[in-house]
């Protein structure tokens, strides 16, 4: 029970991290190794914003929620113009360039923000206990054991993830922006021919992807702390989620996030945690072995 609730929280965090990458990768077809660093920048800047503003946590948090994604998005769009555009989004060179960006962002953060993990206070964080029923010596009874609880903020993260997902889905399927992005994703040459400014779209997409990662980070940072190396794991997991889900499939991304978020939690009921993680990692990889296009991806014709 708790395992699945926690799995949902982890999945929600994964979804938030992965969506940005899904868009960037889906539309631009480049592997952005620095994506995790935008996530980290989001978390670090959230700390900066909340500490500079001070006052009530809600105030700082809301401010961070608005300011940080925009800021990170602008940084990313700038990096796109300055660097990625000039390597023509060549897959190999993009990898080198984004590894370079990763080093730059990490070191700059280390020099300014420092090596510590710093907490951001959650705007609200009530502990919600859940009851448990069991047959004891005195028959059926309701008890409030330790452990069976979740915090209100974690529930909020789940709902926030759902809200962001719906918003994103609407933008992608119901608006002109979405149409342009999908057109570019399908065939950038044709889109160009039809007057889509592909170069600009790429910058916007790159910025949007980074902004989404930063948004996820702002939501996550009251649960985890901001640290200059925190970008590595989300990058890998987000990458895995995007590919397992199937490129360009938003529902696939969600299912994959749930699969990964839940799997080792559930397997760890039967095995020791590390063994569970080994099995989970291996099984998730096997999903891709037998379904290379991802869960909801379309097989190449």
């Amino acid at each position, binding site marked *: 029970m708790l395992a699945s609730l926690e799995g949902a929280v982890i999945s929600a965090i994964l979804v938030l991290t992965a969506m940005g990458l899904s868009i960037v*990768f889906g539309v631009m077809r480049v*592997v952005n*190794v620095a994506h995790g660093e935008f996530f980290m920048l989001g978390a670090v800047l959230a700390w900066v914003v909340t500490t500079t503003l001070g006052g009530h946590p809600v105030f700082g948090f809301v401010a961070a929620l608005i300011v940080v994604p925009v800021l990170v998005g602008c940084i990313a769009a700038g990096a796109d113009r300055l*660097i990625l555009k*000039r*390597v023509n989004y*060549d897959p*190999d*060179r993009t*990898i*080198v*360039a984004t*590894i*370079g*960006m*990763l*080093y*730059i*962002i*990490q*070191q*700059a953060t*280390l*020099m300014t923000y420092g090596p510590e993990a710093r907490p951001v206070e959650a705007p609200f964080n009530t502990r919600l206990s859940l009851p448990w029923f069991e047959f004891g010596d005195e028959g059926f009874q309701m008890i409030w054991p330790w452990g069976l609880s979740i915090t209100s903020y974690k529930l909020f993260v789940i709902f926030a993830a759902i809200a962001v997902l719906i918003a994103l889905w609407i933008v992608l399927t119901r608006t002109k922006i979405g149409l342009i992005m999908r057109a570019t994703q399908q065939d950038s040459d044709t889109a160009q021919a039809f007057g889509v400014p592909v170069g600009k779209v790429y910058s916007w997409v790159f910025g949007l992807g980074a902004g989404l990662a930063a948004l996820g980070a702002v939501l996550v940072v009251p649960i985890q702390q901001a640290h200059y190396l925190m970008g*590595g794991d989300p990058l*890998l997991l987000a*990458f*895995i989620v995007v*590919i*397992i889900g199937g*490129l360009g499939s938003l529902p696939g991304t969600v299912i994959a996030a749930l699969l990964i978020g839940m799997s080792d939690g559930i397997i760890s009921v039967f095995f020791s945690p*590390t*063994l569970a*993680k*080994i099995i989970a*990692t*291996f099984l*998730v*990889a*096997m999903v*891709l*072995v*037998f379904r*290379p*296009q*991802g869960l909801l991806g379309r097989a190449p014709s």
Partner: protein
Amino acid sequence: MTLHIAVLVVLLGLFFVLPAYHVGAFSRIMVLAIYAMGYNLLFGYTGLLSLGHAMFFAAGMYGFGLTVNLFGFSVAPAFLTGIIAAAALALIVGYLALRTAGVAFMIVTLMFAQTVYLVILYFGEYTRGDEGFVVQQAQRSFAGIDLTGETERYFAALILFAICFLAVAKLVQMPFGKRLVAIRENEERARMLGYDAAKLKLHALIISGAVSGIAGATYGLLFGYVGASFSTVQYSIFPLLWVLLGGAGTTIGPLIGVIFMFYLIDISSGYTDAYLLIAGVALVLLTLFAPLGLVGTLRKRAFPWLP
């Protein structure tokens, strides 16, 4: 082939002219260059981008180190076990992962490598997990030669490097190597010329894994340490970076890439704490101005004879 010999002669000469520290550095560079060459065979020649090669490096390293430590193997059989372990792992991984291509292949290899990393930690009783273990000086001599001295280490590294270097150079000139390039260039076309692309890719992966395993075993042998950090994602990304920097699909590129990256960090860290910043800027500039890597770009612009 003469150019390859020339490279080896230069490496031999460096031993006599370089100061002690750089002799040590080059021993390490040559070992890592073996790893990069193994990677290049799969990525640069066959066009398969793996994000999990650290598992082969680690297989070689642990295959060597564990047999020495647990079973008291001497250097030669332990070293051989390391290579076999890496090749066997590559066979299994290849059998499964080669069903996929492109990004899916990247992710599958990444996750298999992560599985191997976790397995190393899980069997901490034998592997000492992340801490790793030391292969003692006494266990690191071969045919009466103590490989822990600076000179012996340099020459051991040079000999192993030379073998791998010449073998790879030979391999890519053979029909087999050309067929790998054909797969990189256009797999469907290669298949429709009657080449068994699946089998060729599997062979490429096994050789690539085995060469990476040689690098891992050599590292354990020459530097006396076996640890899980060599199986992390970071060590899977390094060879990709080296190969891209030096020039994918060139025989000398991996070596150049390793030298460049090693000294970029080594020298810049002597001037500032923020050396990663410098390294980052250098990578960005390099990819802007040398799109095919150092060797690849030089070959295209000025020196078409570069190997």
